[in-house]
């Protein structure tokens, strides 16, 4: 995934290409109709197998991926990412879920999704999130930020001493996550902390990386329970 984010060149040309993966046809059509004009929906998939095939065949820039999907080996959205990502190097995944359950979300994030938003988000919000992902940023919902704070023990006062430490958040990252958990947008976070939006995005990406790579026991426990490791 990180290679893909490093070079957002080829695929993201004029229109942002999107693939919608959701087993609910009403939801797919609804979302499709609501997305911005600047987003070009290449196709829709309803199951794990279908999604993998379409991702590899169409090479969309962003896949809006439901966490819960039938088919495949039963791994849902995470399985799609694990199987399809190596064969679609420029494709980024944004997880969509009706669930706030932390293990659902963390499973797709750890599989490589670049962010997570809830399905009650409006078409404009989804479009915005897709663009953000296309720009190489991570998309964190307040819930996800809250979960991150919880899982990394940030509220208990644990902070990382070096930027290389994967199992704890730095003080600044904790602050950013706190504000996102309060419903602040990136811009508002930047304004509150007197830093640039780019810096906020850097922090969020760093947190996402920690979320994906950390071996912190809370995360590992979830990952183990979901057979991710």
């Amino acid at each position: 995934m990180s290679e893909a984010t490093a070079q957002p060149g080829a695929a993201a040309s004029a229109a942002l290409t999107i693939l919608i993966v959701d087993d609910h046809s009403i939801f797919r059509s609804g979302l499709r109709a609501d997305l911005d004009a600047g987003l070009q929906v290449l196709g829709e998939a309803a199951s794990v197998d279908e999604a993998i095939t379409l991702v590899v065949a169409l090479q969309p820039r962003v896949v809006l991926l439901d966490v819960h999907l039938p088919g495949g080996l039963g791994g849902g959205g995470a399985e799609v990412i694990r199987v399809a990502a190596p064969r679609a190097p420029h494709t980024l995944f944004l997880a969509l879920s009706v669930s706030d359950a932390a293990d659902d979300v963390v499973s797709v994030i750890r599989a490589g999704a670049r962010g997570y938003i809830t399905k009650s988000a409006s078409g404009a919000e989804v479009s915005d999130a897709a663009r953000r992902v296309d720009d190489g940023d991570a998309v964190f919902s307040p819930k996800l930020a809250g979960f991150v704070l919880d899982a990394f023990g940030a509220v208990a006062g644990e902070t990382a001493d070096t930027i290389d430490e994967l199992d704890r958040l730095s003080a600044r990252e904790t602050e950013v996550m706190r504000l996102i958990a309060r419903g602040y947008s990136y811009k508002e976070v930047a304004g509150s902390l007197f830093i640039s939006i780019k810096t906020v995005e850097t922090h969020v990406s760093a947190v996402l990386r920690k979320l994906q790579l950390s071996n912190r026991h809370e995360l590992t426990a979830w990952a183990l329970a979901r057979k991710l490791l």
Partner: protein
Amino acid sequence: MLRPRLRLIGGVCAGFAEHTGLPVNAVRTATLLLTLCGGAGALLYAWLWVTVPSAPAGSGRFATPLPKASLARPSRRARPGSGTAGPAGPVEPPVTARFEPGDAEPAPGVGSAGDPAGSFTTTRAAPITEILLGVALLTAGITLVASRLGAEIPLAVVVPGIVVLAGAALAWRQFADIRSGEAQQASARLVRALGALVLVVVGILLFFVTGDAPNVWTVVAAAVAVLLGVAVVIAPWLLRQARDLADERAAREREAERAEIAAHLHDSVLQTLALIQQKAGPHSEAARLARAQERELREWLFAGTPTGSSDSVDLATELRRVSSLIEADFAAHFELVTVGPNVPEAPEAVVAAAREAMLNAARHAGGTVSLYLETGPRGIELSVSDRGPGFRVDEIPADRHGVRESIVARMTRAGGSALLRPGPGGVGAEVVLTLPAAAAGTAPAGTAPAGTAPPGTPAGAIERPIETRTP
């Protein structure tokens, strides 16, 4: 048969009397007499002491298997003059004095029978254990008495017979306990199983050893008998294992079924509700209804069965409840994010102040209102932020009590504080309620590796790096 808690020595006589309905004094006398017959009584006493379980500590369950005794006793008490067994104290001493060195309590064996007359449930269907034990005891007694009197008793057969009977009785009780699902102490189970095992083996071997002229057939018979005996003793344990396994499997199946239903509802109904909200726009009636339904369904699906006790609700649940109530009346949607360990008992001041802040946000701002609850070693912090027109405390007329009285003053009284400031990016309003761990009392305990806040922390001392930077 159970040994009562109040006892002279081991409570065996009292328990036996209780169980059979015989007067306890008669039982004690019989025991003494038996003891004089070559020590049989003492042996029996010791054996029963070891093998008969004590009555449960709570007096409510004291006399569970003993309807007869429980019925009989009060009536006897009520008529102290009715010669058979008056209040045990005066009648008993000549017999029991030897058993009772301290004599602190008058007639403890009987006194223990102060069981509530209401508990008449029998735990066993057929008193096989008692019958077997009874037969064993009876045989023992008769044999001993008879041999004392000079009768020719085939001791070689009778003694092992008694032992085997007793062993079988013990084993049977294991079965009975298992059937009744009664929880046993592991030690009691072990003692009893070992006792039964030893008794059965010894008894059967005795047959063999004391038999005349051992030949191949007696050896084979003894071996088979020992194996059978062991099997009988071990069977209850095996049965228990099998039952545990079946229970576990059933529980797993139920869980799987529930998960399947949850997954199905998750995929269909929740999606549709999300879609309705998305299509209808945040302020519409349809969205509100859909949201309420979604919340209910979600709670049912993921929170498991609703907690029965309504008096102690954790803070997050309480906030969710308040959210849904307010959402029903206003075009607002609360998004609650909780971080940190849950607060098991919602502090009243925080809930009340939060309700007021949420109502304000819903009434004046509407739309999406963010609730952020952070619990940690420092205490509770709850932020309610909206994107409405916003307000300033000093601009609020003095006669408007909402904010000042219901939020600020309430939090101050509880030892916390409330802060009002502009919302995210200077838009709207944010109310931050803080309650230090010391004031919260029941606040998240045992989760703080860094150490909890010192008891005397002033309310405003909670560090909040963000707040100092807001314009």
